């Protein structure tokens, strides 16, 4: 399309083939284009904002040097805030904002606002370029003998097919594969149950109805240090709760609790958040991540939420010295499901 064609469309509008071109509305000049005093006023406004921005930067430096970090400012309902933080943020934010506002104001009021029509070019290459490219490609195929020399072609394809194999071999070696480690924790027959953080062993009479204790195996620290394996803790964390034995509807195994004391994994079976939001009157255990809810009085079954499996129960008993111990490891994998899990 030619240049004089463009002016025609801009002023009158024409129909060309199937395309209807609409004219632009007539251009109205702004006040700053027609009134020099308005233009000067806009110029002063922009400059003032640039100067204010500069002053804010100086105020920022002054605030940084002068305001002690012990000073606090009361902002009413928004609470209190460190004065230094507040002033630094305010001055630097204003400095940035004023430059931005000034630039936009400048562009809107003073820079040229004449409409310009800029036509799009056709996307495709000209036909002669396409023909030339096709001819060059065909000549290359003919000269290389790719079609006639079958042996070369087939061996090349074979070589390319083998090419990605090292990648697969290397990726497979990123292991070692977890083996059966997902199915076991460090709980053993006779592992003593100790309170988390304090490491204090527990007797059944230490817990009363309604009690909740976050616990781990007594030998956790030694095992972690020997193996250099932090996963042991993640998998072995449990909670102990005590309820009236008459409140227990069902358990995952016969004789797995001790006088109303039940031990469950602390790791949600959905995606593995640690949970201890135990509601002692409903016996519900709520996961804060996705609201899966387990009924600990009824085999830890899921009563709400996305978890698909009951919370695994740890069989417990009391040893000869009267301390709570595990009867065995968990009888099923703890934590979220995995592909190989039956």
């Amino acid at each position, binding site marked *: 399309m030619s240049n004089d064609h463009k002016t025609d469309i801009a002023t009158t509008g024409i129909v060309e083939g199937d395309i209807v071109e609409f004219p632009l509305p007539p251009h109205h000049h702004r006040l700053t284009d027609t009134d020099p005093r308005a233009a000067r006023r806009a110029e002063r406004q922009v400059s003032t904002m640039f100067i204010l921005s500069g002053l804010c930067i100086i105020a920022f430096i002054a605030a940084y040097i002068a305001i002690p970090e012990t000073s606090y400012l009361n902002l009413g309902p928004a609470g209190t805030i460190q004065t230094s933080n507040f002033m630094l943020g305010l001055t630097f934010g204003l400095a940035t904002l004023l430059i931005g506002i000034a630039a936009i104001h400048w562009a809107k009021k003073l820079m040229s606002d004449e409409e310009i029509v800029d036509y799009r070019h056709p996307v495709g290459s000209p036909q002669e370029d396409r023909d030339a490219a096709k001819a060059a490609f065909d000549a290359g195929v003919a000269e290389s003998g790719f079609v006639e020399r079958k042996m070369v072609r087939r061996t090349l394809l074979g070589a390319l097919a083998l090419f990605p194999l090292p990648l697969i071999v290397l990726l497979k070696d990123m292991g070692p594969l977890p083996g059966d480690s997902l199915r076991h924790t460090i709980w053993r027959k006779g592992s003593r149950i100790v309170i988390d953080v304090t490491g204090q062993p527990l007797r059944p009479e230490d817990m009363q109805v309604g009690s909740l*204790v976050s616990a781990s195996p007594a030998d956790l620290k030694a095992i972690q240090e020997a193996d250099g394996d932090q996963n042991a803790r993640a998998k072995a964390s449990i909670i102990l709760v005590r309820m009236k034995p008459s409140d227990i509807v069902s358990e995952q195994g016969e004789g797995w609790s001790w006088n109303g004391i039940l031990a469950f994994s602390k790791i949600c079976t959905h995606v593995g958040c640690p949970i201890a939001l135990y509601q002692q009157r409903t016996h519900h255990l709520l996961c804060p991540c996705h609201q899966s809810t387990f009924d600990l009085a009824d085999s830890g079954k899921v009563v709400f939420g996305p978890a698909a499996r009951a919370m695994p129960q740890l069989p417990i008993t009391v040893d000869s010295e009267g301390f709570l111990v595990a009867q065995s490891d968990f009888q099923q994998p703890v934590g979220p499901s995995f592909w190989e899990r039956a």
Partner: protein
Amino acid sequence: MTSTSVRRNKATGLVVLLAGLVITGVGYAAVTSTAEASVAMYSQTQIDQGKQLFQQGCATCHGLAAQGSSEGPSLIGVGAAAVNFQVATGRMPMAQPANQAPRKVPVYNDDQIAALAAYVASLGPGPAVPSDEDLNTTDANLAEGGVLFRTNCAQCHNFAGHGGALSNGKYAPSLMNATPRQMYEAMLTGPQNMPVFNDKTLPPAEKRAILKYINELQTAPSPGGLALGSLGPVTEGIFIWTAGLGALLAVAVWIGAKVR
């Protein structure tokens, strides 16, 4: 069951109750300071007054003899600490049966609360109202309190003690306005759906460490200003998606507006 055996049961109960009171009272006085004993010991007048108040204000749900009903649990053996916590924080009496008993302005004054506590404490042995000595956190370990808080409390009460949601409309309340005595009582007695953290699983020294840490949370200044409930990404996200994006939209509209 004949009327004679019922009468005999009542008499036995009274004897056991009196014996229990005398033994606990004398035992407590023997092992504790006088300041503590004044908290733990109640006069018969208080017990009688408490019984009267109980039958007027509490018996509808908890039963005439505090034995419990379908509307409310038995209060035998819950101790003075439970009464002081529930009534002094206004949670009891509840306005109506509901999943959550919210904190509100207490209905009873201090003397009435003490009388109610005296009556319930007289029904069976239970945790006493903690003394000032129990709540003295001078020697408590702040860092240990933080670890214990995050292990035992933060799951429900939020890492900053601002509380959080539970199931079926229940929630764990914010600890920002709770007093040390109320929190100590809550740990001892497990009010509503809160589990019990009795002295065997969480010894008094550890409770005091937790109280010291919560006091730190309550009094620590907020250098960043607006905490938005300390709920993490939820409130912060809502704030930036509405206020932040709203401001950007307003600027975009201004940039695109026609100049006259």
